[in-house]
């Protein structure tokens, strides 16, 4: 990553009106602004923007679905890059009424839309995203070839907790579902969105591996706690104790780190696959 940024530096310095005050809403959007080298113009972010770590030091507008219009305006942004989740709509209308340009970015569960989103953010910032996009395309193509060579499609159960209570299982139309398919695996759940899952449904799903978020794993009390949830222990994943956890934003963000996240997921899903390393992987995985 460092090498690439150095190559980009002369290009980046040339473009864009310097006076733009940017507010980002959504973790992947914030990451992209950093990756495009525009972090110095950020005046604030939301609570889901936790990467890179320095993003945590910016003023926070709270949870992105419960924005306060006046609080956002007090940061005096001129451009808001908002993921489609941002709201409530009334607050966005009030912010727009103050003359702030709001660019809404669609949620993405696939590589194509993820590349489009990076391009859209670059366009809003008057930056050239070509080097970043080309690198991402090349990384994804290499991974796709390696993953296709494994010829196996393990069943993955993805769990995510929403506050208290048992974790929810990721069904179709989720970012987790998109990542599972990209990694050459099958989602063990076929219902839509994130739903609570009963013990019997877990048994029926018969996952070969359980993937979850770091926060969720900590909340359930580690691997032992997770496998102690109803129905987990007798599944193939439970018997082999195959549980993997990732940072939720890293794995599900579909941002500039998509290729690294996909390689990490594929390497735990296909335990004996041969995945070539990505260029400069070490510099950016942290």
């Amino acid at each position, binding site marked *: 990553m460092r090498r690439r940024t150095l190559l980009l530096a002369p290009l980046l310095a040339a473009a864009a009106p310097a006076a733009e005050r940017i507010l980002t809403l959504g973790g992947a959007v914030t990451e992209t602004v950093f990756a495009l080298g525009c972090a110095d113009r950020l005046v604030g972010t939301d609570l889901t923007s936790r990467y890179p770590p320095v993003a945590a030091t910016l003023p926070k507008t709270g*949870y992105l*679905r419960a924005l*306060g219009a*006046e609080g956002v305006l007090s940061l005096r942004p001129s451009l808001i890059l908002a993921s489609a989740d941002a709201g409530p709509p009334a607050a966005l209308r009030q912010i727009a009424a*103050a003359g702030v340009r709001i660019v809404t970015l669609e949620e993405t569960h696939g590589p194509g839309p993820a590349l489009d989103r990076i391009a859209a953010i670059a366009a809003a910032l008057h930056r050239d995203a070509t080097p970043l996009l080309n690198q991402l395309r090349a990384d994804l193509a290499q991974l796709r070839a390696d993953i296709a060579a494994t010829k196996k499609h393990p069943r993955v159960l993805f769990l995510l907790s929403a506050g208290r209570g048992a974790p929810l299982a990721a069904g179709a139309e989720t970012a987790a579902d998109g990542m599972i398919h990209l990694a050459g695996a099958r989602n063990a759940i076929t219902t839509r969105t994130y739903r609570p899952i009963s013990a019997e449904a877990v048994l029926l799903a018969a996952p070969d591996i359980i993937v979850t978020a770091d926060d969720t794993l900590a909340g359930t009390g580690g691997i032992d706690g997770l496998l102690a949830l109803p129905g987990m222990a007798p599944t193939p994943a439970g018997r082999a104790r195959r549980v993997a956890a990732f940072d939720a934003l890293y794995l599900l963000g579909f941002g500039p780190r998509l290729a690294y996240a996909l390689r990490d997921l594929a390497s735990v899903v296909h335990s004996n696959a041969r995945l070539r390393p990505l260029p400069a992987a070490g510099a950016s995985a942290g």
Partner: protein
Amino acid sequence: MTTPAILPASRVVFTPKTLLFAALGALFLLALLLEILLGPVAIAPGRLLHLLLGAPADATESAVLWQIRLPRALMAVAVGAALGMSGAAQQGLFRNQLADPALIGVSAGAALAAVTGIVLFAPLQAVLPIPPSLLIPVLAFGGGLAATFVALRLAGTDTAGLLLAGIAVNAACGAATGLLITLSDDRQLRDITFWTMGSLAAGGWAGGGIALLACLIAAVMILPTAPALDALLLGEREAGWLGVRVDRLRLRVVVATALAVGAAVAAAGIIGFVGLVVPHLLRLLGSPRHGLVLPGSALLGAALLLLADTLARGIASPAELPVGLVTSALGAPFFIVLLWRGRLA
């Protein structure tokens, strides 16, 4: 504070009642001023006057004043007054200081309808000819009125029956809401959580205006019932001997509070504490007479909600707190102090 003994006997200009109203009025105006003056975006008081007079100005400042603070002030006044006055009237009607507008099912019915709207947003939007931003408020208002109507039909002819009917409606609505929550996905769940914590942000001029209209209609219906509610303190039969038509009084109070609270909940979601505790504060400050408690609760409810909203916008900036949290955080210690002093006296 309750004894007029310290007043000079010779020329009593201010009765305790007018003093109390003057104090409440002053508190209300102060709260209104703070709501308009204070916030994360600093606007100097001098500039405020310019903005109010429509002078050309900075886009941010004028949007903050005209699109955010003034509509929110209107919402706070309408919702706070509606909840305070309705709570006072319900407590009088049920002769129970623990009564609040939720008792006859308004809030539970509105919550069920709102949660239905959140969970089944897409299919409902396809069926109902309502703009998306109005879907939840319209459903909530209808749900509140429907639940009250069911409670009234179940109630029969006595107040205890109405109480039981309210409990039944609350339980049924709660069960259905719980069922919908288990069907909801994670995003809908978060929307439901925020709705139940209340917010004055979404209503805007239209929501505030409609809530104020409903509140004024309810005030016209409720305020003249003060003498009848006073008589009811003696007991239902005793009030009947004094010439109070208790069944008509009950219908009138229930319909008026359902209207006011239904509109308030539709515009702002669930805001606790105001309806239950503001009438108590009034009784602790003054007398139990409804001529004082009913309008006083409206004024104090509005003032409390204005102050709560000022804090909700300000203390966590640039994030914002749900106003329902702040009303409880603000009101509870004050209430505890008053109870404590009352016990010592």
